[in-house]
């Protein structure tokens, strides 16, 4: 007997017979979305930006409201693994297409790195239920670690990224340990206080550059200094090109690891700890252990993303550690859909790219975010892309039973 219950036949079978070419459907859908996203980051005129924005809204509405759209979404989620691989290929294709566009690639890398940090934040909030109001602070800890290490130590830069993560993770654990025995919102309060304190501390402490912050050397890998890149073979290339590729790689890595955590016993343990502490403890799960694990891994991911972001920008200031930026990160994951990693990418586009592009709204960006988050909470509480149901039956049996 197959381990998967027979799926209900889709009503209104489309004329296109899409189920017969599922992979084609997936490739076309993902390519459309990433092509649109790439154009959005590249677009310069207001008309282009507004047109693309309208296009995206139409596509999302179609996916949500029409039988055709729902069928396409269903195919894409059935072929989730293939869709993810396609997405990474498409992201790299976008990078190639804009290989000499500094600004577009900077946008793209920024989105990729913030989305990476938001994967960490998602692990903390959407799975373990820890509200981290210091996301930006841990991000900046990563950047400062990179600044100090590139200046004073001759470590390979990949290792520096890892150390950035470890430092952020360790600071987070020290912060969380005292409040583990408490229930409710103490952890959230402690993170708010920590973000504010860190910012003040960095501002007054001259060994970290004071309010001006610190310069950070560019990333170099196996002798290739990213900041000096100007061509790739016979092509002109922006020096942001290698950063974009690395940022996408980082996102892919964080994405894969977190997906595996989600789809394992640990994922179930975290969900239990979040949704029902008494039940979790009666069934032998240690609340403290799982909260620490989620907070540690989440902050490590944020710290690594922060370290690369700092090296890409070439500097870091204490301003970035403030509450405002942390709230921005939280609004990205709420807007995108708690627990949906692709949702964070879409929301990072909405929050980071669109205001850059639409000069008209730039002054009102905070106001618009507030309205946007309110609208999402009112009309679509689970976010732009809701968290998918964890269906472990897809891993059941000796593979091959299902594509």
């Amino acid at each position: 007997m197959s381990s998967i219950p027979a799926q209900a036949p889709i009503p209104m079978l489309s004329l296109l017979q899409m189920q017969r070419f599922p992979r084609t459907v997936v490739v076309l859908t993902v390519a459309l979305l990433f092509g649109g996203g790439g154009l959005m980051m590249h677009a310069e005129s207001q008309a282009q930006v507004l047109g693309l924005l309208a296009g995206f809204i139409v596509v999302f509405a179609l996916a949500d409201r029409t039988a055709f759209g729902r069928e396409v979404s269903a195919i894409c989620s059935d072929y989730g693994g293939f869709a993810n691989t396609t997405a990474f290929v498409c992201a790299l294709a976008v990078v190639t297409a804009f290989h000499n566009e500094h600004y577009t690639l900077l946008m793209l890398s920024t989105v990729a790195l913030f989305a990476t940090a938001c994967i960490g934040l998602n692990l903390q909030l959407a799975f373990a239920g820890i509200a981290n109001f210091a996301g930006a602070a841990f991000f900046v800890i990563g950047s400062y670690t990179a600044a100090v290490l590139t200046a004073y130590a001759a470590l390979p830069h990949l290792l520096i990224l890892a150390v950035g993560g470890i430092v952020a993770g360790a600071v987070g654990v020290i912060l969380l340990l005292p409040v583990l025995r408490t229930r409710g919102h103490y952890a959230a309060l402690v993170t708010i206080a920590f973000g504010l304190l860190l910012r003040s501390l960095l501002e007054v402490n001259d060994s970290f550059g004071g309010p001006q912050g610190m310069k950070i050397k560019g990333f170099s890998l196996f002798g290739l200094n990213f900041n000096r890149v100007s061509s790739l073979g016979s092509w002109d290339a922006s020096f942001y090109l290698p950063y974009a590729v690395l940022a996408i790689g980082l996102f892919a890595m964080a994405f894969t690891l977190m997906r595996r955590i989600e789809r394992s016993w640990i994922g179930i343990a975290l969900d239990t700890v979040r949704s029902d502490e008494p039940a979790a403890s009666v069934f032998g799960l240690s609340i403290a252990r799982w909260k620490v694990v989620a907070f540690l891994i989440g902050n490590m991911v944020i710290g690594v993303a922060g370290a690369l972001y700092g090296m890409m920008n070439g500097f870091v200031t204490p301003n970035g550690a403030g509450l405002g930026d942390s709230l921005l990160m939280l609004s990205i994951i709420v807007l995108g859909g708690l627990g949906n990693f692709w949702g964070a990418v879409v929301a990072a586009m909405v929050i980071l790219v669109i205001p850059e592009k639409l000069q008209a709204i730039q002054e009102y960006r905070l106001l618009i975010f507030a309205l946007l988050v309110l609208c999402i909470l009112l009309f679509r509480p689970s976010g732009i892309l809701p968290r998918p149901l964890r269906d472990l039956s897809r891993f059941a049996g000796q593979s091959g039973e299902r594509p």
Partner: protein
Amino acid sequence: MSAALLRCGGLTMRFDGLVALDGLDIEVGKGETVGLVGPNGSGKTTFFNVVTGLYRPSAGSVRLDDLDLFAKPPQTIGRAGVARTFQRSRLMLDQCVFDNIAVGALCRLDLGMWTSLFRRKRWRGELDAMIDRARQLARRFNPAIADRLFQPAGAFTMIDRRRIEICRALIGSPRLLLLDEPSAGMTHDETRQLMDDLLAFRSEMPDLAVVLVEHEMDVIRRVSDRCVVLNFGRKIFEGTFDALIADPDVQTAYLGASQ
């Protein structure tokens, strides 16, 4: 009754001034079903919370076989083989039935980070075994649950959710099962179905000790071997169901003293 599995002696639980359990002595033998009865607020659920470690008792002793479980953390007690259901259903309604049932066995599975991230083959092996067990267990209660193991628990009726909760408690092969008002919020027919379920799995697990809190006297009469009645945290009666019905103290506790 052979040597008792659960032995509670002089168990006392005080909340500031309120004495919720007052020197309670309860023993439950291997394979025995004890019905725990009493008016609202008499300390039945408190007793469960103390035995499972959610409350820290003020005095007394709790032993499971030769293990001392007095004032131990709930995790230790759960791992020692005590499982329970809750009065108000505590399932993750937006998660699959399978995930909910698996919670009951998580602490016996490989929760290591390394296995979860990089030894997926090993994990898949465990997963296959767990799915088989969950399906077998669910089938005993209702084949429809076994067939819909990967649908959200929220899509099921009240009685099926209660069954899922019992499966979650049973999947870790506990030695002692505490059922807190399994019939709460159910219709008469559903209560009867659930009772049949309880008797059925009871006969398949002859060694399991069960304590059942219930207001439906029908359920108590059919399912339990022995009854204990609590009132204001004290044991006021212990014996068979027929004796319980005739006992004047119990009648007073439930109906008030006759003039």
